[in-house]
């Protein structure tokens, strides 16, 4: 039995400390703003492995890959017992997660088992063709904390495949549901999870001619929406730091559009660099220490980086063209960006230090907003042709292009941290506004991501745990 202690950033719940092992790394922005109070509570959750037995059957049978023979793994999540409504809610969060995972298919309305701590009678689960069963129990601790334990059972063998316990503040039960979802997803697919993540997006209200845009943050399933800006300034294209609680985005302050950085915890904001012109389309480097962006001067836009430690800026491209939407490869050695240097918007790859760039998009129409997958294997993009806007992926050498969704207007993909899904926005046009959607990289399942009003420009956080 192993005991893991992790530091987690919580958005709800009272802070409490139990054992604490290693010193947390201080993110960059916090070094800059260490005098500001940290508004977000830190919560320790202990994760206990319960009697983890090896699977009787082959693991990773849900091969996360393409092919028409794909079948999702069916899973029956029984109602977590012990704390009434909390268990029902937690179970529903897990089921909702799995529905959008595409690779797992939850069996509906399986109810509760008599004893969630023992191997259940598999007969009813076999009859609904479930391959796995999840049982769970919630227990209120003496100090008010909630203990949430789950067990994953292999229906064919009847053996327990996984089991873990989580300790959390009671009003953090959604968070626990996401962590349990990730643990189960990983156990079955062999892939990293993506449920314990957040989305920052641009909340849009008001008439289209004078849209009010605010940065907002929420859980990946749309819960716990919180606004990060007030709507006084127009804000667009937020991007998560891969290493800290910072965002970079473009905002109009006093009518001057520039790239900013915002710390989600402290609310502190600063301009990124002192550039003689509009800066836009920012994105962090994979180590979180640089921001790459476009600078508009005259009629051209070129790519620059700013080192966040030294504040030194470096010019990467020098063309009369529009070079924008830069994104790093996960190892930081290359960048992908769009440029109209060849006459229309196309996707190019070059060294992260600039220099010769190789065009990788060659289909009909225009290609834009390339984003390198955190796994490195694909580049997601927007493709515009014949009056439609599609979201697609291609390999970094331009081969293997696959359109995941296409329609009147789809734009702005962002990757889930496991590289298996992209989120984007879809705008029906006219006086209406955009909404967020997600799709897996094989285009098998597409789902709306709920937002309070119109939403655009999503950016997916790294895994929180």
């Amino acid at each position, binding site marked *: 039995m192993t005991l893991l202690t992790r530091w987690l950033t919580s958005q709800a719940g009272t802070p409490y400390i139990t054992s604490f092992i290693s010193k947390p790394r201080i993110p960059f922005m916090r070094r800059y703003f260490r005098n500001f109070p940290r508004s977000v509570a830190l919560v320790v959750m202990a994760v206990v492995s319960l009697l983890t037995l090896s699977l009787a059957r082959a693991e990773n049978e849900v091969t996360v890959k393409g092919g028409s023979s794909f079948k999702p793994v069916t899973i029956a999540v029984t109602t977590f017992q012990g704390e009434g409504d909390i268990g029902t809610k937690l179970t529903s969060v897990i089921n909702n997660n799995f529905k959008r995972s595409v690779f797992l298919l939850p069996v509906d309305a399986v109810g509760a088992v008599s004893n969630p701590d023992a191997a259940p009678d598999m007969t009813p689960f076999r009859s609904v063709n479930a391959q796995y069963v999840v049982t769970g129990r919630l227990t209120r601790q003496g100090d008010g904390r909630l203990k949430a334990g789950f067990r994953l059972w292999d229906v064919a063998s009847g053996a327990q495949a996984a089991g873990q316990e989580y300790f959390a503040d009671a009003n953090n039960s959604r968070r626990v549901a996401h962590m349990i979802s990730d643990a189960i997803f990983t156990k079955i697919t062999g892939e990293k999870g993506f449920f314990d993540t957040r989305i920052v997006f641009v909340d849009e209200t008001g008439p289209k*001619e004078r849209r009010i845009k605010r940065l907002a943050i929420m859980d990946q399933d749309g819960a716990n929406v919180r606004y990060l800006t007030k709507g006084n300034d127009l804000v667009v294209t937020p991007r998560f730091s891969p290493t800290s609680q910072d965002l970079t985005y473009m905002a109009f302050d006093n009518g001057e559009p520039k790239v900013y950085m915002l710390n989600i915890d402290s609310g502190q904001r600063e301009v990124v660099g002192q550039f003689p012109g509009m800066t836009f389309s920012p994105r962090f480097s994979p180590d979180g220490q640089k921001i790459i962006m476009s600078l508009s001067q005259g*009629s051209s836009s070129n790519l620059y980086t700013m080192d966040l430690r030294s504040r030194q800026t470096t010019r990467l491209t020098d063309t009369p063209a529009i070079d924008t939407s830069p994104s790093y490869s996960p190892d930081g050695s290359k960048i992908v960006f769009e440029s109209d240097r060849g006459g229309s918007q196309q996707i190019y790859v070059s060294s992260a230090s600039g220099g010769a760039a190789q065009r990788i998009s060659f289909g009909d129409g225009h290609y834009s907003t390339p984003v390198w997958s955190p796994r490195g294997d694909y580049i997601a993009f927007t493709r*515009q042709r014949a009056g439609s806007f599609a979201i697609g992926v291609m390999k970094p050498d331009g081969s293997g292009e696959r359109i995941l969704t296409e329609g009147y207007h789809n*734009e702005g993909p962002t990757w889930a941290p496991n590289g298996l899904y992209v989120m984007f926005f879809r705008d029906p046009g006219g006086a209406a506004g955009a909404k967020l959607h997600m799709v897996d990289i094989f285009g098998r399942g597409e789902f709306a991501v709920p937002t309070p009003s119109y939403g655009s420009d999503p950016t997916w956080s790294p895994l929180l745990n």
Partner: protein
Amino acid sequence: MSILLAGRTFRLIAALGAGLALSACAKNSADDLMGGSGANGANGMNGGLANAGASTPGSIQDFTVNVGDRVFFESDQTDLNSTGQATLDKQARWLSQYGTYAFTVEGHADERGTREYNFALGARRAESVKSYLISKGIASARIKTVSYGKERPVATCNDISCWSQNRRAVTVLNGGQS
């Protein structure tokens, strides 16, 4: 203090401009389909407001109503067409006559493009107008440019009658005489 005042006036004018363009939109969508560049929208606006009068020569309203504050672009283009050049010739004459105004050229794009590119495209359109006005003798020190990308459309519908009005560069006079 003076900056604050200028900012307020700027916003007022921007709102006024948007309102005018909207009413022109409803009226002139058919004209735009026939007439192309969308300059009809501005001309229509002039006609519609002629009876309103109240445009003191040299006032911001005089500029907006009698000269025309905007030019339009073809899809994904930043070149000025002959209608646009004619409008800018009028602007240059007016701006030369009333030489105390500083102004901002706002570049805009329609919604049929991606966000980042549209900011760059709007910047190019504003630059295109700025260069033209400089070539007609307007001092570059009087001219600022800003791009709004596709963030501030004046017409919202799913066809070219709206997109053509949104692909624009608008010359916005600073309220205070500088």
